[in-house]
């Protein structure tokens, strides 16, 4: 597993699953699986903006960029390249 994926997974597990990653797959939709609610998405956004050197535009707030570990990792890689 990549270092980036590890980092995102830990953030999700520590902040939203109380440290218990039981059954959390990299492709699972945060919203559909009830892992993160709308306030949580904003926490995720602010975490990404603090940790990485770019800001997230309003039109980028879409599930394809932010609604699973895989999507977040792909999005960050794309934005950082």
């Amino acid at each position: 597993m990549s270092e980036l994926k590890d980092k995102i997974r830990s953030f999700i597990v520590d902040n939203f699953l109380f440290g218990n990653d039981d059954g959390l797959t990299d492709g699972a939709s945060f919203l559909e699986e009830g892992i993160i609610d709308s306030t949580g998405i904003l926490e995720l956004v602010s975490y990404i903006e603090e940790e990485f050197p770019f800001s997230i535009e309003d039109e980028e707030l879409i599930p394809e960029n932010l609604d699973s570990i895989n999507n977040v990792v792909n999005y960050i890689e794309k934005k950082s390249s």
Partner: protein
Amino acid sequence: MNLNDQILIHHFLEKSARDFPEKVALIHEDIRATYAQINSKADQLACLLGDLGVTKGDRVVLILENCLEYVVSYYGILKAGAVAVPLSSDIKPEGIGFFLKELEPKVIIASNRSERALKAADITPYNIGALILRSPKFKWDSTTFSVFVWEDFINEKGNFAPDIKIDESSLACIIYTSGSTGIPKGVMLSHKNIVSNTNSICEYLRLTNKDIQMVVLPFFYVMGKSLLNTHFAVGGSVVINNKFAFPASVVKQMAVEQVTGFSGVPSTYAYLLHRSPLADYRKSLDSLRYCSQAGGHMSFQIKDELRKTLPAHTEIYIMYGATEASARLTYLEPEHLYDRKDSIGKAIPGVTVRIMGADNKEVSPGRIGEVVGAGANIMQGYWKDKQATERVLDKNGYHTGDLGYQDKEGFLYVVGRKDNLLKVGGHRINPQEIEDAIMESGLVIEAVVLGLPDELLGDKLVAIATPKDGDVNESHILSKCAQKLPRYKLPGSVILVKGLPKINSGKINRSKCLEFITGNKD
């Protein structure tokens, strides 16, 4: 079409299935379900529930996010003569026992999203007959109740013809509302309550079978439920989007599906304005006939920004209601948005709303009293809570707990909640006034003002707000407020956060906000 011939809630679906069988009633991601398909599945579910022993008055609990299965279940339960009790799809294990104990449901229908919570809660002691799960992930061996997989269950052929001897006064739904004490109360709504309110809403919004509603509010919340009922009543369509956390995807789908209506609570609009490309889509929303807002006071700042951002042809309806009123009590005609600033309008057809004093007599225009609503939409009472029922229902109707007044032309205004008033020093303070002042600064997306117990002051004012951008700080906000508010109404501090905690409907969760501050202080 005369809607008044429909006396039970599921008659709306049945009539639309007869009139427009092949019309798409529901759109959710890749699913496009017609009225005929939904009605036939709901009939099937009613028979299957009958086979499980469900009969008139039995409670069936629904723990589903907005989806086709929710809609089929809702109408299937009603067709079986039973009572639909939707609970939040984000329910936590420790919360489940409370509901099951007081509801004694015969069946629970849930999705895999709440399966983990149901498993953790141990529902064995509650004497449930069956649990029907959509796409379960866990094994459910050695349970004292039957467990069915929705996808198999719904394709069975039920034998039982449901005993449908119910009438308009029969209990149809119990919808939970948390109220001021934080203990959930089950609002009992009859078929007549919901049917009458549905007819009124269709009338004043002039809904027709051409209407397509974007639904981002959950159906288990009374406003979400009324979107479903009203559009199924007129043979319109609903588009479900459960991803409002990503507002851009919602706005895009509104354009693609050419929706005619959108509804939200204040935070929905705050986020649409400031965290979505709504303005860029202005030209693509040519079908959007109206936006409606309810679910609490929305600051004029947001109304004004919304008016300036939406296409000119899109009307804005400000509405007011309560779960206890089956949803709706009043609405403001769009042309009065500016000349009746902050009014909630007038009573909807078939409803009367009066402002009553402490002596239970109507007060004169301009004087503040409690908002009291009466009509066929007012609930039967709270489930198993006679005392709470007697506190709010009397011969005058439903006492909302909201304080308001009426102007000389009969327009109504709500100024705050009876139980939200704060005491700072010798002053009675209405937090809504301060929240409005913070919003008027134009620096924040949303704000809440709370009172922290203080030995000297009684309450000490603290605000929590979400800034529009990272450059905004506490003193910017306070200096703007100081231009509008007397010193004693200025919050002692403004805590800036990324987003305020919400309940599922999107309303701000004041008690979570309070916990947040006290947690911060400790």
